[in-house]
């Protein structure tokens, strides 16, 4: 009996050390993962000199410093003394019109996602649940398109858009992404797991195939859709390459990452404080979205029936 009790303790101990070990490993990993974010946040709080010299710890001394831009415009030195945090964040919003960029980002990512869904969902449904001649071929095509790197086709695409006069418009930011083969692929995998009976029941209830997609498949696929949504939104919210190519005229069409370039001086020195402030602001909406979506999001990526 006493032996059993000792055993219990050993068991409990083993359990707790195991969890503790798990936590230790995960925390170590989290530290490495978080290091750049720590730096990013820290840089967004400090004065330029502190940034370049890497002094001042996490938030810097917060001593006011002289804003060159202001001086150069001919203002008095006393008027140009600014607090680092206030300077970094207010510059991010004023100089780069970040609010405008964020709004553009929302418009663009939401439109892209919306169109992707409208296009991909029916296609995924057909590939998963309808039997028709050429289905395998279409699916193979989807798999092939998955391999095509967008950077490689950027120029032909740009020229095509230019020919129809769409550069420097929202359309240019949106159109190339209206087709998401990844989305088709992911949604198809999910639709494969929706029972056929459900679709047949809908047919018996008098739904057209079109109604089935929006009234049956879409609501049941919400988790998968969220997963796809996160991938799509993250990718296009953060996209730097494509907007830079097509938006050469109007700054009002900038998406948030392009806001970062306002602070690039390249060989003549970047303005890191506001740049990092911008970066922090840009990533925040995504984190919030992820936190809201994560539960259902992970359930959504069903990969069973993969083939």
């Amino acid at each position, binding site marked *: 009996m006493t032996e059993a009790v000792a055993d219990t303790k050993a068991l409990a101990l083993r359990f707790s050390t195991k969890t503790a070990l798990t936590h230790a490993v995960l925390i170590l990993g989290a530290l490495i993962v978080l290091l750049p974010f720590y730096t990013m946040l820290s840089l967004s709080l400090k004065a330029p*000199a502190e940034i370049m010299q890497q002094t001042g710890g996490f938030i810097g001394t917060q001593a006011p410093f002289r804003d060159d831009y202001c001086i150069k415009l001919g203002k008095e030195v006393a008027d140009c003394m600014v607090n680092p945090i206030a300077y970094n964040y207010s510059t991010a919003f004023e100089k780069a019109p970040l609010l405008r960029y964020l709004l553009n980002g929302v418009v663009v990512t939401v439109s892209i996602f919306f169109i992707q869904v409208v296009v991909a969902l029916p296609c995924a449904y057909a590939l998963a649940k309808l039997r028709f001649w050429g289905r395998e071929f279409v699916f193979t095509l989807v798999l092939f398109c998955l391999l095509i790197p967008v950077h490689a086709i950027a120029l032909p695409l740009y020229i095509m858009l230019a020919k129809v006069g769409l550069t420097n418009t929202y359309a240019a930011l949106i159109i190339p992404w209206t087709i998401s083969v990844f989305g088709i692929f992911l949604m198809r995998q999910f639709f494969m797991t929706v029972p056929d009976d459900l679709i047949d029941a809908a047919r018996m209830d008098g739904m057209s195939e079109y109604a089935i997609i929006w009234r049956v498949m879409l609501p049941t696929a919400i988790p998968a859709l969220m997963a796809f949504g996160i991938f799509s939104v993250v990718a296009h919210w953060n996209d730097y390459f494509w907007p830079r190519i097509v938006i050469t005229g109007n700054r009002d069409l900038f998406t948030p990452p392009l806001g970062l370039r306002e602070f690039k001086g*390249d*060989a003549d020195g970047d303005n890191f404080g506001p740049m990092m402030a911008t970066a922090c602001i840009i990533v925040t909406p995504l984190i919030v979205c992820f936190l809201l979506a994560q539960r259902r999001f992970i359930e959504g990526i069903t990969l069973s029936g993969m083939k």
Partner: protein
Amino acid sequence: EDKIVVEFGYPYSHLFDVTYEKILPKFYEQHPNIEIKMRATYESYEDGTNTILREAVAGTLPDVTMQGLNRQAILVEKGIAKSLEPFIAKEADFAKDGYHKAMLDLGTFGDDVYGLPFSISLPVGYYNMEVMAKAGYDETNLPTTWSEVVEACGKLREAGVDNPMFWGWNITGNWFLQALMWSQDKPTVEGNDFQLDTPEGLTALNTMKDIFSGCEMQNLEWKAALASFSAGDLGMMYWSTSAVGAVERAMGDFTLVTSEYPGLDEKGPMGLPAGGNSALMVSTSEDPAELEAAWAWLKFITSGEGAADVARTTGYMPPNQAANEIILKDFYADNPAKATAVRQLPLLREWQAYPGDNGLAATQVIYDGLEGIVTGEYSDMTELQEELTEEVQDLLK
């Protein structure tokens, strides 16, 4: 009454936004019927050129664009940039506005002027006097030749400075290679011929190798170099004068001194490539009024008060003699760090581009070769000279 809109593109918003913000009110005062519409800024000179090339294909070119001095050629070759001669011809006292020959040459192709320089930079030396003092240097005995620089490196290292010097070989467009070539008064390209296979070429390469190995220079990227210098790690840094503003903003509590670019011998450099950007007219408009408006803007920013604001807001020099000599006299007295480049003005030479479609590819090949010296990939300079010559010549033919 409708205003005439001039579309305008320029690089480095963080650097030049303030300049234009200062210039614009003055311009509008003189030209109330013109409106300047700022396009999205270019991220770098390369980005600027590529954007213009794409916009040329798309038919969405701006009216005036700012391009790196060495990028003008390609736009001229492809027929995108417009000759400015017709406008200059109409100006009564063009020369009086301070455009002197050396500057105009930078934007002259064939017999026509295509670009008017806007902001001009020259390579200079940056010194952290506190660090230099450890090896017994002060403002009076800063190194003037590359061998003295190497010597200084040795002394600094002995004094416990791990990382005494940085040399901006990686500046875009092989600028520092051209600096070493011009120092010997030798252009890097003549016609379609790459001149690295000359004795001057070998000297340039060997000088670089000596500098890199003699100073055990780290292969820093620009941002890292600026950070190191700001943090007080580096004693000497050779770079474009345009960075003075950035350095002053970021540096720690030490004394910054800029000084003339060292030469191969005591005589100092015989020439130096001009950096910076110049204004090109790329308007596709047929409307004379619009073209006139574009010219008005182009001229305003490259002359007089407009040009002077370049110096006031950045580390660059104005392209315009008048501005430098008359308007900015007091300014340079107050900002000695920015004055160094002005003193070097007589040495100003062209920042050369490599001709043909493969010009940019050639630039890259040379860049890769220079990097090989820094990283230690190449140790035999003669071999490198041969290799580079062959490959670049192949691209230029």
